[in-house]
């Protein structure tokens, strides 16, 4: 647990240096003094028990490697078919985009747009933005467009649903299995791999990325 900032000067404005040394719990507004975390350590809020900060297991290089791997796996998952169904001599397979297009044609444009956003554009955008920020951070620089990229990442974060799609594919396979020959294609394995990578990803704390590279000029 992080020490409560109970000894703070109550009414005086903190100096800029002290400012970044503070941390506010986003779930209950309690103020803490930031402290260095040990390996694998998680700081929790003493009031509401929410996670304040995690020790960053990954350095910039390994985060970037993770993002690039996820990007490649994501491309594979999107190019290869996910599942093939067979009925007699007929075979039908689909990719993610095949699914999105069919839903559009079947008067379910809302579903089509939701799937395109949460399974393609947002996950892809998230990986590209993270990759961009980390690529520049490797050489200690702030990426061009760093601030909008970080703000966009904050808003995109809750809307990526690849892991739900993996479970959905599993349910669809089981349902279809009762009537058809089902073959799982490389696409679904790539998705399963992506699911693992996403779990690792969730260890990346976006807020700590703000501290990665120095701000240009003095902070306003």
């Amino acid at each position, binding site marked *: 647990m992080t020490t*409560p*900032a*109970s000894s*703070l000067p*109550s009414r005086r404005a*903190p100096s800029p240096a002290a*400012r*970044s040394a503070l*941390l*506010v*719990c*986003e*779930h*209950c507004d*309690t*103020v803490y003094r930031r402290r260095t975390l040990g390996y694998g350590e998680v700081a929790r809020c003493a*009031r*509401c*028990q*929410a996670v304040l900060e995690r020790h960053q297991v990954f350095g910039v290089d390994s985060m970037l490697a993770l993002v690039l791997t996820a990007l490649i796996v994501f491309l594979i998952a999107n190019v290869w078919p*996910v599942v093939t*169904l067979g*009925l*007699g001599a007929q075979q*039908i397979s*689909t990719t993610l985009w095949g*699914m999105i297009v*069919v*839903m559009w044609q*079947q008067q*379910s444009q*809302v*579903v089509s747009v*939701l*799937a395109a956003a949460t399974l393609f554009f947002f996950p892809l955008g998230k990986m590209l933005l993270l990759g961009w920020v980390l690529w520049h951070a490797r050489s200690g620089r702030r990426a061009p467009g760093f*601030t909008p990229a*970080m*703000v966009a990442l*904050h808003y995109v974060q*809750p809307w990526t*649903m690849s892991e*739900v*799609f993996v*479970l*959905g*594919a*599993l*349910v*669809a396979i*089981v*349902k*279809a299995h*009762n*009537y*058809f020959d089902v073959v799982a294609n490389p696409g679904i394995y790539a998705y399963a791999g992506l699911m693992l990578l996403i779990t690792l990803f969730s260890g990346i704390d976006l*807020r700590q990325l*703000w501290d990665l590279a120095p*701000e240009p000029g003095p*902070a*306003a």
Partner: protein
Amino acid sequence: MSALPRARDLGLIGCHVCGLVCRDVGRHDAACPRCGSALHRRKTASLARTWALLIAAFILYLPANLLPIMRTVSLGDVDDNTILSGVIELWVKGSPDLAVIVFTASIVVPMLKFLVLATLLLSARSGTDWAQRQRARLYRLVEFIGYWSMLDVFVVALLTALVRFNFLSRVEPLPGVVFFGLTVVLTMLASMSFDPRLIWDGRTNDD
């Protein structure tokens, strides 16, 4: 001063977007010096927005459950499925484990979201200090599991894309699935607009 000082009492604001701790200058158009986002002590009109989104979600939730989400046509034999009948089919056809997962994602999770958010809204308005930790934990749970409800939407979409054997066998999406997808989006927006800080605020302070 209490042992756990809160930002509001110290004249500080933690930026809701980037987390930077800023001085509260008491202006409504104050912006975070690091990320440029507007600074608020609390999410804007949190209670009103969350209620509106939650009620809208509930209105769509009714057709999402009552209307069929998927039609199976095989050799002229038409069969319409609702969310619940899909769960029952999984159970009967020998996949009780998946039936439980789908039941949880599609029925338990949305119901839980409605109940939890309504409880949080009512208790935040009255400013009670009843079960604050438990309420905080429930809120985090709802935020964490909410998007898994999209499961059935993806199942219908995949089956529609796969089962296209013309008159032999065909799956078509039905309006229920659209309502369900919208319900999930609205409940996610509702839980995002609720401000968990209100749980600890005592009196309602909605700015």
